[in-house]
């Protein structure tokens, strides 16, 4: 589908929009929290998908992974450039349980349940490191500070945790 988008096919893009707008908006909103800002960034991302569709290489991964990489990176870059200082100061103590922020629409989804089950299978340090990094947009040095562990430990736990997630969810690529 993205290959057709790359050729300027607006209809293919509508279908891609239908598939990806929910995950794109969801992950951006998860990281940024602010709905208006999330909408703005999600729009930028979806347009970036249109603009750079010809850079997508199906041999290197799925279209969803390509698009969601763009989305997450944009969201993270936005918080790091815009409120690097204010956010860190205000949120000295991380809120480690983000579940109450998750909309009901999300928690009833199959994908949410599957990811949650696999996250539950990790050690607490692996799980919290991954959630702070991916869902809250913290860098691994920030995660290390927040969790009070060494830098090297966080890097290793994130990698080990992600490998376990990959195997738990049966991701093959």
């Amino acid at each position, binding site marked *: 589908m993205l290959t057709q988008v*790359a050729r*300027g096919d607006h209809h293919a893009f*509508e279908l891609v*929009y239908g598939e990806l707008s*929910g*995950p*794109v*908006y*969801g*992950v951006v*909103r*998860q990281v940024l929290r602010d709905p208006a800002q999330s*909408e*703005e960034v999600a*729009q930028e991302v*979806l*347009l*970036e998908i*249109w*603009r*750079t569709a*010809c*850079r997508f290489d199906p041999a*290197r991964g*799925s279209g*969803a*992974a390509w698009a*969601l*990489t763009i989305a*997450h*990176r944009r969201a993270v*870059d936005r918080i790091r*450039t815009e409120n690097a200082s204010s956010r860190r100061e205000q949120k000295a103590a991380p809120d480690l349980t983000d579940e109450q922020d*998750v*909309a009901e*629409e999300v928690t009833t*989804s199959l*994908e*949410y349940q*599957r*990811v949650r089950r696999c996250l539950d299978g990790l050690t607490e340090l692996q799980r919290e490191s*991954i959630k702070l*990094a*991916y*869902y809250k*947009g913290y*860098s*691994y040095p920030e*995660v290390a500070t927040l969790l009070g562990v060494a830098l*090297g430990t966080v*890097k290793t736990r*994130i*990698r080990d*945790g*992600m*490998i376990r*997630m990959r195997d738990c*969810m049966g*991701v093959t*690529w």
Partner: protein
Amino acid sequence: MKNLRDDLHVLTGSYVLDAVSPDEREEFERHLQTCPACDAEVRGLRETAARLAMARAVAPPARMEREVLAATYQTRQLPPLSGDPLSVARERRRVQAAGVFAPRKSSWSRRVLAPGQASWTRRLAVAAAAASVAAAAVLGIAQVSTQHQLDTTRASGAAIARVVTAADAQVESAPSKAGGSVTVVTSAQLRESVVSATGMAALPAGRVYQVWVMAPDGAPFSARSVGLLQDTQLLAAAVHRGDRIGITVEPAGGTRQPTTTPVAVIPT
């Protein structure tokens, strides 16, 4: 040396979660080119991270679809990479310069609108795009990476032909209060309309005709700008059943929402 390599390999997880600094990201991407094992691991973990994202999918506001689809008509796509390494490197620099790390301010689109420096096609593109935040973001990219990504005339020329020649094309025409008449050709299947006008009164300096897509319920604030009516045709994208095309007189450069009563309203 072994330590350094191990150290970098351990970054696969942090890299796919975007938990590394820009410098580390760059260093790690260089490393990936010489480490097939790391590259393979990154691919698998990137798919895994995508599942974390999909688990948080939330339907965006409905207006976003219209705005994004409309903005694609204002946005030129990147050409495919030609395989030669020099152009790949050049392109990579351009994309980096254009995008991810450049801090962006929400007010820059007004800077792009500075009068006198733009050709009319560009002004047209800018005015149409100013209506939506999404398109504004595109201009932000265009601003840093150069103007050649904006090419409305060429982009919409083919699209206009497609609508007018569509098998289900419907033609609606209505007289305008400003004289002359307005014609709208719509393809319901393509969800696009082509708007053209003839014989409308010339406006005093500083005033323009602006074209809008208006929702069936007619709330004026729900109008979406299509662009300024020059002596050319305009393409309205993401037109839904029952939408109407309206034309208002607005200050030069156009406005975000109609500020006057339409001189013409045409069903699609």
